[in-house]
């Protein structure tokens, strides 16, 4: 936790006296809700170079106390150690919130989203070790006024600080303090206007050196809806100023910007969405791209990724890592239900960097210059590191008890190497996922998931074409138990784990409707995992996992 423990102690002293007051005044309403997550794992992790013993223990208790208009929340975390990210032992979150009529005021830890997230979208994703939580305060005012409350206003002011742990190097921490505000106003039902402003001061380490920066982001947005049409447009402009140091000997103030738009049309049985993104928060030459560049998009900026999110294993295996600093693209997603039993989903997307570059130096040195073009649309040329995908899925309920789902996916992801184009990372996949589930005697269920994938990876030194096949069989008895087994096979000679098959068994037992134990044993292939366009590599794992989830309301 960022601030000192004195504040936490004071907070709980106040809380304690509030609870005593609650006893004294029977009219006070008091409620507690709590959730608990315990994760334990032990086994062997296969890294590229060696097998290492892996053990983790994570205990998270989230509790919320409601006393009339007040809500107090606390998270107690005990990682010994955490599976991914930075271990915490102690109170990792605490806040006090007051809500009355149109006002909400919070002191302590919070997450916040402004509009489409171009300015601010802080969130936590434990599977990849990502956490952009702030410690400070926020005030929200939401009101309707005018004739019949037709005019709607929503405004938020936030301030606070954050220590952001780099997911690729947990020893590296960026520190930020922010002040920001956001508003939206809807004068009539059909459209709304909004805007946001953020000011931040940051300390970004590069090795042992710290670069001090200040940054400002202005954002405006517009949304409209009429007769089944919905439109959203958002644009943000950012300027970052650095203090000179040994790395950056001069102060610079580069600007970057980002735009996101979405247009959808819906009617009964049909829906189509077109997303467009154009993120240019730090368009630089190939030799200057760096995850630690102080002029990059900030970790608490997280705009829509505009690529499809999959839930099945092989479809998620080679994901695209969204570059919020330099990426332009679009996505079309269509749902169509010609009959209540059949739903069709089609998706197409194309994404690339904005520009191609060339070496303008005629000596042995290198000086990249970009080849200008109208960069409002993505390119499919390798030099632009394109990513594209086509996906089609049909879901059919033959009757109440039998459901089938069949998909087809084709993806290409290219990470272009300007130094050696022949060494570019090119991955092409063709994947067919199939799911069949059958329910019998009302409470028993059988589910089969089968996925087949053909892949091409240009970085393989031997055979570049390979296939993978994954099958999961689950048997369940409602409302308590699911037993499943997963087997995955491949003929890939260069899988990082050095293996060709992975077999895992899992038992899920729900001892009440909101309390669950999950036990699994076996091997998992690992790979790249993503959340909101942010990705990290997860090593293959072979061993035992235990998860206990509880909710108390």
């Amino acid at each position: 936790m960022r601030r000192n423990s004195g504040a936490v102690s004071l907070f709980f002293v106040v809380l304690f006296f509030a609870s005593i007051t609650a006893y004294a005044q029977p009219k006070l309403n008091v409620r507690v809700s709590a959730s608990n997550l315990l994760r334990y794992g032990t086994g062997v992790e296969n890294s590229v170079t060696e097998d290492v013993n892996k053990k983790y223990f994570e205990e998270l208790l989230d509790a919320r106390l409601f006393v009339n208009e007040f809500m107090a929340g606390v998270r107690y975390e005990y990682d010994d150690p955490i599976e991914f990210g930075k271990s915490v032992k102690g109170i990792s979150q605490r806040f006090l919130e007051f809500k009355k009529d149109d006002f909400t005021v919070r002191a302590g830890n919070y997450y916040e989203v402004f509009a489409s997230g171009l300015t601010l979208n802080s969130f936590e994703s434990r599977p990849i070790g990502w956490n952009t939580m702030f410690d400070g305060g926020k005030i929200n005012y939401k009101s309707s006024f005018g004739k019949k409350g037709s005019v709607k206003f929503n405004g938020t002011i936030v301030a606070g600080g954050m220590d952001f742990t780099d997911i690729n190097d947990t020893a590296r921490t960026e520190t930020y303090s922010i002040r920001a505000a956001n508003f939206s106003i809807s004068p009539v039902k059909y459209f709304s206007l909004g805007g946001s402003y953020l000011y931040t001061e940051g300390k970004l380490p590069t090795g042992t050196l710290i670069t001090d920066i200040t940054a400002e982001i202005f954002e405006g947005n517009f949304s409209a809806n009429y007769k089944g049409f919905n439109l959203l447009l958002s644009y943000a402009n950012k300027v970052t100023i650095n203090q000179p140091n040994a790395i950056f000997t001069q102060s610079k103030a580069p600007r970057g910007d980002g735009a996101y738009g979405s247009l959808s049309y819906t009617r009964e049985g049909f829906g189509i969405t077109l997303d467009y993104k154009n993120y240019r928060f730090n368009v630089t030459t190939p030799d200057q791209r760096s995850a630690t560049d102080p002029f990059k998009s900030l970790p608490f900026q997280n705009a829509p990724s505009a690529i499809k999110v999959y839930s099945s294993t092989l479809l998620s295996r080679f994901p695209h890592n969204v570059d919020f600093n330099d990426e332009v693209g679009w996505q079309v997603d269509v749902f169509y239900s010609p009959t209540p039993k059949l739903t069709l989903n089609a998706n197409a997307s194309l994404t690339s960097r904005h520009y191609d570059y060339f070496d303008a130096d005629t000596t042995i040195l290198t000086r990249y210059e970009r080849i200008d073009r109208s960069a409002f649309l993505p390119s499919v040329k390798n030099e632009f590191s394109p990513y594209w995908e086509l996906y089609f899925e049909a879901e059919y309920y033959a009757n109440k008890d039998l459901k089938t789902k069949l998909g087809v996916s084709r993806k290409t992801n290219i990470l272009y190497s300007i130094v050696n184009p022949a060494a570019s990372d090119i991955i092409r996949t063709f994947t067919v996922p199939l799911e069949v589930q059958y329910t019998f005697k009302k409470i028993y269920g059988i589910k089969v998931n089968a996925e087949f994938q053909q892949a091409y990876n240009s970085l393989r030194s031997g055979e570049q074409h390979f296939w993978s096949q994954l099958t999961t069989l689950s048997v369940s008895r409602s409302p308590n138990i699911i037993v499943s087994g997963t087997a995955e096979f491949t003929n890939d000679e260069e899988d990082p784990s050095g293996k060709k098959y992975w077999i895992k068994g899992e038992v899920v037992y729900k001892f009440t409707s909101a309390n669950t134990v999950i036990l699994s044993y076996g091997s998992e292939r690992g790979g790249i995992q993503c959340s909101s366009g942010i990705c990290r590599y997860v090593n293959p794992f072979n061993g035992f996992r235990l998860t206990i989830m509880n909710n108390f309301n």
Partner: protein
Amino acid sequence: MKRIVIFAVFVFLLGFTSNSFSQYDFDLNDLEGNSVKLSELNKTGPVFVQFWATWCVPCKEEMKVLNELWGKYKDSGFVFVAVTIDDQKSLSKVKPYIESKSYKFPVLFDTDKNVFSSFGGQDPPFSVFIDRNGNIFKTYSGYMQGDDAKLDKEIKEALAIGKK
């Protein structure tokens, strides 16, 4: 010592808690931008609040079942509301998905997951069933095949609570 004190405070408070409706009432926007309050929905009858997301497969299976149960029991006062916790990356797909399935129940946005968190939600599908008196009748985490029989039975039980 500090940890023990904190733990003691919470245990102490758990002992005299009550389900007060005003503390988990929420006010969220629906697909058309209209404000919808839980306390208003609860005037009709017991409210089943399902937290879901477009990328969550079991959520959509549960939603299909709940839609059928809502069709069966809505005339008896059963209210079903689906609250999406989709974030910015998938938010634009919520309305097209709902309309393509011809669902007619209210769908609300909880983009910053504040309401989801206030009920102690961890992962979707996560649901809270509030009875006619405004008390939390059941909390559900996860969904499995065959749960429709259990849900059907519990809707009947909830409809019987506080019936005049």
